[in-house]
Each structure stands twice: as structure tokens, then as C-alpha cells.
């Protein structure tokens, strides 16, 4: 049995119904790295079949940041809303928009090559690594520019409206900054990369 296992690929081991624990032990015995084990256990389709069209990716980028903006504005307006129903509707809208923004971020991450750098890097050739590095560079420049506005604006929120509301405004702003940190390089790649060739 052991001799059989030695000559079989991971896919064949799975096909023969070998328990996952035994497959894992066999892969470790073969000296496979953790990345190789991860790849063998859950093979992913190649990047080229995952990227999707550029127009679709751009729409998702717009949805990502647009929904975050709609969510924040709805929350801000809901504070000033007179009736209970209007407040509830605006809060519902904000919640829905933030969910769409989250889904968009996850969708983009799966269709670009920088969502999980350690795993994805091994799929990248030298040109794609250049694209990725360029995206980080552009994202950093954009991020630096946006933070220049976000930082004084958050201080302004706190000074104009001291107390809970000002703090909430500042936290929401920094939530946006956190969103940018996590999604901007991905969004840059999604926005720039052309349609996959047929």
C-alpha cells in the first residue's frame, strides 16, 4: 500500500479515496512545501481564466468605492433625518451598500493577482510581477494624496463636533482609509489590465 502511495499523484490519491490526513502525511513525507501542499489540495484555475473583462472589472471598482460612499453618506444623513422610518430606511441603505462594497472587494481580489501575494506570486511571470509592482506604486501615490485630505478632515470633525458624533465621523473616515489600504492596489490592477486575449 505504501509503495502504491509513493507513485501516485495527489489527484490520484484523492480519486482513490485516501483519507485527507493520510494524503497530507504523504505530501509532507515527499518534502513538499506548505505552498505546494496548498496548491495540490485546492488547485486554482489559471489567472487567465479568472480575470474577466476589463469593463466588468471597472464597474466593480466603481461599485466598490461608490457603495462605500453611499453607505457613509446614508449614515451621515440618517442622523439628521426627522422620522423614525426615514432613519431606518437610510440605515438599511447604508448596510446594503456596505455589503455590496465588501462583495465587490472579494470579487476583485479573486480576479486579480495581488489578493494573496504569497500564493499568487508563484503564478506570476516577470511581466505580471511588474504590473503588480507598478500597481502598488500607483496605489501608494493615490493613497498618500487621499490621506492628506482624510487626516485634517478627521481632526476637523472632532473639533467642530466634539463628542460621539465627531468621533464617529472621524472613525468612518479612517474606515475609508482602511478600505483603501486593502483594496487600492487590487483596484488599480483591475482598472488597468486589458481584456484577456482570446
Amino acid at each position, binding site marked *: 500500500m505504501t509503495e502504491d502511495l509513493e507513485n501516485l499523484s495527489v489527484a490520484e490519491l484523492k480519486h482513490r479515496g485516501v483519507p485527507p490526513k493520510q494524503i497530507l502525511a504523504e505530501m509532507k513525507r515527499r518534502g513538499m512545501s506548505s505552498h505546494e501542499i496548498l496548491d495540490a489540495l485546492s488547485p486554482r484555475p489559471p489567472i487567465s481564466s479568472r480575470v474577466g473583462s476589463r469593463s466588468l472589472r471597472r464597474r466593480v471598482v466603481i461599485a466598490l468605492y461608490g457603495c462605500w460612499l453611499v453607505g457613509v453618506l446614508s449614515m451621515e444623513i440618517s442622523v439628521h433625518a426627522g422620522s423614525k422610518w426615514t432613519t431606518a430606511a437610510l440605515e438599511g441603505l447604508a448596510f446594503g451598500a456596505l455589503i455590496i462594497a465588501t462583495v465587490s472587494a472579494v470579487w476583485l481580489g479573486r480576479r486579480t493577482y495581488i489578493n494573496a501575494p504569497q500564493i499568487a506570486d508563484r503564478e506570476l511571470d*516577470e511581466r505580471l510581477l511588474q504590473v503588480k509592482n507598478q500597481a502598488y506604486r500607483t496605489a501608494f501615490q493615490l493613497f498618500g494624496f487621499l490621506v492628506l485630505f482624510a487626516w485634517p478632515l478627521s481632526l476637523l470633525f472632532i473639533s467642530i463636533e466634539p463628542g460621539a458624533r465627531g468621533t464617529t465621523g472621524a472613525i468612518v473616515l479612517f474606515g475609508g482609509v482602511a478600505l483603501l489600504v486593502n483594496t487600492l492596489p487590487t483596484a488599480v490592477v483591475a482598472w488597468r489590465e486589458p481584456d484577456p486575449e482570446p
Partner: protein
Amino acid sequence: MAPTIRNRITVLRVERGLSRQQLAEALGINYQTVGYLERGDYNPSLELAFRISEYFGLPIEAIFSRQPFAPMSSQLYGKEESA
């Protein structure tokens, strides 16, 4: 802007009846990168240039050039005529 390096990858690939996908797999690169190389939109690293040269079994200067290539037909028949 990076200087343009001309190449004959398209001709060599078509001559051998290979698709971009097949060539990409043989070279260990993304298939879109083959398109970028063929159009001259991307200049390969020295390491990739050597891999391409080894794959086609030709010297690097037969595949890449800083000057525009003369058409292969004129190179072949032009020499014969002058000989």
C-alpha cells in the same frame, strides 16, 4: 520609455504550428505575456530571452534585434541571388 526590441517570436511560433497558450506553457509564462512579447509591448528579461532562444534552438540575435528585421524571404532569396 524603454527602447523597442524587435523580435521574431510570432514567425517562429507560427512556423512551428504553436498556439500562444502552448508556447506560454513551454516557456513557463502567462499566455497573455506571449501576446505582449509578440507585439513588442514588453521587453523580456535576459533570462526569458535565453529561455526563448533555447526553446526555438536559435541564437538570441536571430530572435531579438534592436534594428528592424529584414523580411526572411528577402534574406533567404536575396542572398541566393547575389551568390
